[in-house]
């Protein structure tokens, strides 16, 4: 919403300048977006008169003018064809910055004649208008008059109107708040009704009171339309509105002056004697004033004539092409109606149409302005166009005014902490238009334009904002004491620990979109239509992600495209299984593109086992229960299809519960994401990992530091190649859970000496005696148990 300072001053008696007004607006809750002050740019320019104009001695197209200026007589070279003796125009002195040219004037000879300034065109001053030559101003303007004054340039304030305050869409509403805030005295001119001279020949029929419950109309005969006077054109132009003609400009002016949209019809083009406001019919179209044709519908308000048969406008939105006013118009029908806010908002969305009227009606126009609006418009039309008004006809009834409610002024202090007397509270509310009945029990009635005020909290807000938030006390929150159990849920605490752990292990945390494309979602086990975004920001971001893997793979590929292929990324964030509140899971996902530079000491550890080690370290840090298994069984417990079938495994708790999957990513999957192989990763679903059981005590129990030496024995087993080494290790561990504390794999061998299809797996088993040093016999017995356990997997000691 834009307005000029002088416009505001028509409603508010104040000495404040634009800056002061903007400051007061800001602190009263009217969020100023911009204050533009064209007077600053026009400051150097003043009115001048050309005394004589002679042909330039060295150039046919130039003239040397003697000019009477604010700085005295000046000789100025001018190239404009309209420069002539007696012309009143605008003079720019040396040193002035000319906005339209983007230059600062310097004194320099033009073809041998020094020009002591410049005579300006409209374009050079960035003013609208004809720029064929220098400005041609009224001859009676005094030399030295500031250009800003000549052109009526003045500061324009633009501010954001919050949806709760449609009354701020009129300058009078802004003035009311500023007056309440103490910036000046409200002086909005009262509206004096204009008596009708004859009965209104047009009747009004309301067929859809849900869309248009009240409609006032009046005919004015014998008007003279045409271009608006300078002041009106200027006022509209200052806020970015184009002047059309007097009749239309009057309605536009009142829309901004009083937040009251109106419409004016050319009476000669109206068919039949009635104007009907009704719902549209399916298949009906309306040719609107913007030159476009819109499809009506039953929930769209249509204004029709010809006994309701011809649609001539979209009610509250835009008039129709067929009944618009032109310079030839002599008789008009003036409309001041009230259209339902929700219906008007919906019409705007459905038809993709917006207008000053639609914007205001959608936010709720003050129903109290239906008749005053038509009277004010009548007065202005009579002033500008002459004519003779009919009586006003009003069809329907305005929606109910806001109802009164009880208000305890002590609640202002209770809710805000402000120290405001009941007298001041009443004063503020009254200044804002509320009717306040004080006494033991206060009753407050909001004005018709404050449909947002329903109860005490609304009044408290009004008082607080007008008294000013600067007066709020600063009161420490009561100390609740720190809670003993911490403030994070176990899940939050684990996510946080995982974040720090992965960063410490060398992974860089990324945050990527929660969306991906449906195709990619499908490729990663998701893509349900219920997780499709109906209005995505881009086609590739139209589905909620089922996994973080594709996002990190794409990120790694982008890094590679930029010449940085070696990345190790992680993200801890949501993945979506369905659209219910419980369908969201927290995934901890890592993607590694292993492209480490070569190193003098050799290749180092296989990146995939490095990754597995990091995953296991992470699981330990997160308090994963003992008994997590790495299961690599493509037949019975395969990993998902986006993993390399031979180089991926599941981390399970027990035979079924999946905690994580890790491995190399499937080259075909990578290819569809335009990523180069190899990439490795894991995805861990945090919710799947059971929380450590809450112990009754923080005590850790005795440490049991045995005084007995542990001993180790090596075993080399020959086992079928298809048996995972992990199974063998687990079998050996299970041979004596109490005394076997560790089983390390120190060699895996295939080749000479081992039958094809078999491998040799060498284990170092650490034994911890519990009661006493183990005797040879006990060690023998334990070895036998280990052999027996391994034999169950078909393993035999290597000969």
């Amino acid at each position, binding site marked *: 919403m834009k307005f000029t300072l002088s416009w505001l001053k028509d409603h508010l008696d104040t000495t404040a300048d634009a800056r002061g007004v903007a400051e007061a607006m800001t602190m009263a809750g009217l969020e100023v977006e911009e204050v533009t002050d064209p007077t600053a740019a026009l400051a150097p320019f003043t009115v001048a008169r050309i005394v004589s104009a002679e042909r330039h001695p060295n150039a046919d197209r130039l003239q040397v003018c003697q000019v009477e200026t604010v700085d005295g007589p000046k000789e100025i070279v001018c190239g404009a064809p309209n420069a002539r003796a007696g012309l009143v125009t605008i003079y720019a002195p040396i040193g002035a910055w000319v906005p339209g040219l983007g230059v600062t004037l310097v004194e320099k000879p033009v073809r041998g004649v020094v020009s002591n300034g410049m005579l300006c065109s409209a374009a050079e001053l960035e003013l609208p208008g004809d720029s064929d030559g220098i400005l041609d101003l009224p001859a009676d303007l005094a030399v030295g008059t500031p250009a800003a004054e000549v052109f009526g340039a003045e500061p324009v304030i633009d501010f954001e109107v919050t949806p709760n305050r449609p009354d701020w869409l009129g300058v009078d509403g802004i003035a009311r708040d500023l007056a309440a805030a103490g910036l000046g005295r409200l002086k909005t001119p009262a509206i004096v009704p204009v008596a009708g001279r004859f009965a209104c020949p047009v009747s009004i029929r309301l067929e859809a009171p849900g869309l248009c419950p009240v409609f006032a109309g009046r005919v004015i005969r014998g008007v003279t339309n045409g271009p608006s006077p300078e002041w009106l054109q200027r006022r509209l132009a200052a806020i970015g509105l184009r002047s059309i003609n007097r009749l239309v400009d009057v309605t536009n002016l009142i829309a901004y002056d009083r937040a009251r949209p109106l419409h004016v019809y050319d009476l000669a083009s109206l068919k039949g004697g009635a104007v009907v406001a009704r719902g549209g019919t399916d298949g009906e179209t309306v040719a609107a004033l913007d030159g476009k044709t819109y499809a009506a519908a039953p929930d769209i308000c249509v204004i029709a004539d010809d006994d309701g048969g011809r649609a001539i406008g979209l009610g509250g939105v835009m008039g129709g092409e067929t009944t618009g006013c032109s310079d030839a118009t002599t008789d008009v029908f003036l409309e001041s109606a009230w259209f339902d806010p929700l219906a008007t908002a919906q019409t705007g969305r459905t038809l993709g149409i917006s207008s000053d009227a639609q914007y205001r009606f959608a936010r709720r126009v003050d129903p109290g302005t239906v008749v005053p609006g038509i009277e004010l418009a009548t007065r202005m039309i009579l002033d500008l166009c002459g004519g003779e008004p009919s009586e006003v006809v009003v069809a329907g009834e305005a929606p109910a005014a806001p109802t009164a409610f009880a208000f305890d002024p002590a609640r202002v202090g209770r809710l*805000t902490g402000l120290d405001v007397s009941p007298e001041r509270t009443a004063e503020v509310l009254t200044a804002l238009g509320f009717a306040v009945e004080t006494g033991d029990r206060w009753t407050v009635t909001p004005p018709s334009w404050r449909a947002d005020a329903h109860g005490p909290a609304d009044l408290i807000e009004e008082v607080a904002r007008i008294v000013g938030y600067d007066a709020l006390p600063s009161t420490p929150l009561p100390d609740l004491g720190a809670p003993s159990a911490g403030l994070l849920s176990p899940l939050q605490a684990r996510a946080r620990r995982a974040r720090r752990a*992965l*960063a410490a*292990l060398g992974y*860089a945390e990324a945050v990527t979109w929660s969306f991906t494309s449906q195709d990619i979602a499908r490729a990663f086990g998701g893509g349900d239509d219920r997780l499709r975004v*109906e209005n995505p920001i881009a086609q590739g971001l139209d589905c909620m992600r089922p996994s973080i893997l594709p996002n990190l793979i794409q990120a790694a590929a982008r890094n590679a495209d930029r010449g940085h292929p070696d990345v190790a990324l992680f993200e801890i964030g949501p993945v979506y299984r369905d659209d219910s*509140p419980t369908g969201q899971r927290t995934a901890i996902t890592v993607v590694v593109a292993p492209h480490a530079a070569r*190193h003098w000491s050799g290749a180092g550890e296989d990146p995939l086992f490095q990754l597995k080690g990091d995953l296991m370290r992470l699981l330990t840090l997160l308090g994963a229960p003992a008994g997590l298994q790495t299961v690599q069984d493509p037949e019975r417990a395969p990993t998902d299809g986006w993993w390399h079938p031979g180089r991926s495994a599941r981390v399970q708790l027990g035979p079924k519960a999946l905690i994580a999957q890790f491995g190399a990513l499937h080259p075909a999957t990578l290819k569809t994401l335009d990523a180069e192989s190899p990439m490795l990763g894991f995805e861990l679903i945090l919710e799947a990992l059971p929380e450590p059981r809450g112990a009754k005590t923080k005590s850790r129990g005795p440490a049991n530091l045995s005084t007995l030496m542990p001993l180790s024995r090596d075993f080399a087993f020959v086992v079928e190649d298809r048996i995972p080494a992990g199974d063998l290790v687990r079998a050996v561990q299970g041979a004596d859970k109490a005394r076997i504390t560790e089983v390390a794999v120190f060699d895996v061998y295939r080749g000479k000496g081992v039958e094809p299809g078999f491998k040799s797996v060498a284990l170092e088993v650490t034994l911890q005696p519990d009661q006493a040093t183990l005797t040879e016999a006990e060690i023998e017995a334990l070895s036998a148990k280990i052999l027996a356990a391994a034999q169950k997997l078909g393993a035999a000691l290597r000969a």
Partner: protein
Amino acid sequence: MTDLNQLELDLINAIGSAEGVQALEDLRVSALGKAGSISGLLKGLGAMSPDERRTEGPRINGLRDRVAAALAARKAELAAAELEARLKSEHLDLTLPPRPARSGSVHATLQVMDEMVALFADMGFSVAEGPDIEDDFHNFTALNFPPKHPAREMHDTFFLRPDPETGERKVLRTHTSPVQIRTMMSTTPPIRIIAPGRTFRKDSDATHTPMFHQVEGLVIDRDIHMGHLKWTLETFVARFFEVEGIDARFRPHHFPFTEPSAEMDIRCDRSGGVLKLNEGDSWMEILGCGMVHPNVLRTCGIDPDEYQGFAFGMGVDRLAMLKYGIPDLRPMFEADSRWLSHYGFSAFSAPSPAAGLS
């Protein structure tokens, strides 16, 4: 006499020039071994007269002790020389680089979220969470957005496809306020929570991304008023930016879910691309807040005549940018490894009241 002196001289010389442990051992055996020269002399003592023994005994024993000492000294010398030689041969070129380790990092947004959690935890707030995919009730209706009201349009909501059976259209939450609703509906006051999380709006330009992060707060009790709101946010913002105090102003604003509502501005100077707080004469909006609207309390089953309180919300990514001088929003979600490394944080810089925020 001369024999003993000569013997000692010869032995000490031989020991002194013995090269290697074996040569030294041979000398020991030749002097002090069973058949050694000194051992032989000691054996000869038995055949001597008591007088001779009295004079020769100490001489021979003294010789034995001196030779033994010389042997030990030379042995230590040789061992040291041998160790030195071995160590010299074990030379490693330590100017060679170690295997480079990737240096990991914590994302700036999540680091800042941790900072916020630490600060609010210190003020007695706990952390609440809720789903990103919300229903219309929790995201709008319960927050006092009337159906079809223009205020809803200001949120640029992402919608999911309507459910084929119920026709219900889920939304991606446009703020974390639904978490406040869920908290108020499931617990009883006093309530003191923050709700951090992902939020979504259909907006994409230099300063907006379709996904961003918010931290919202909610305090409900019998006597919580706007002065508490002011103190809480002034205290938070000063501590967050790690300054002693903050020059802030509260400006009336409109949100459907709070009344009175405000935006908080801080005084700052941003010339030269660096944020200088409490300087200059421009105000920058950093968060929205207000007293929870009675309709919201009522919807959540809390009696607004008995309980009242405040709520606030801020953009985490934006505050991270402001605090750490991150110029652009969009790269925060692009996972460029160079960006992550430059603007990321060490795993070991977890914010704590003792070590400070950053």
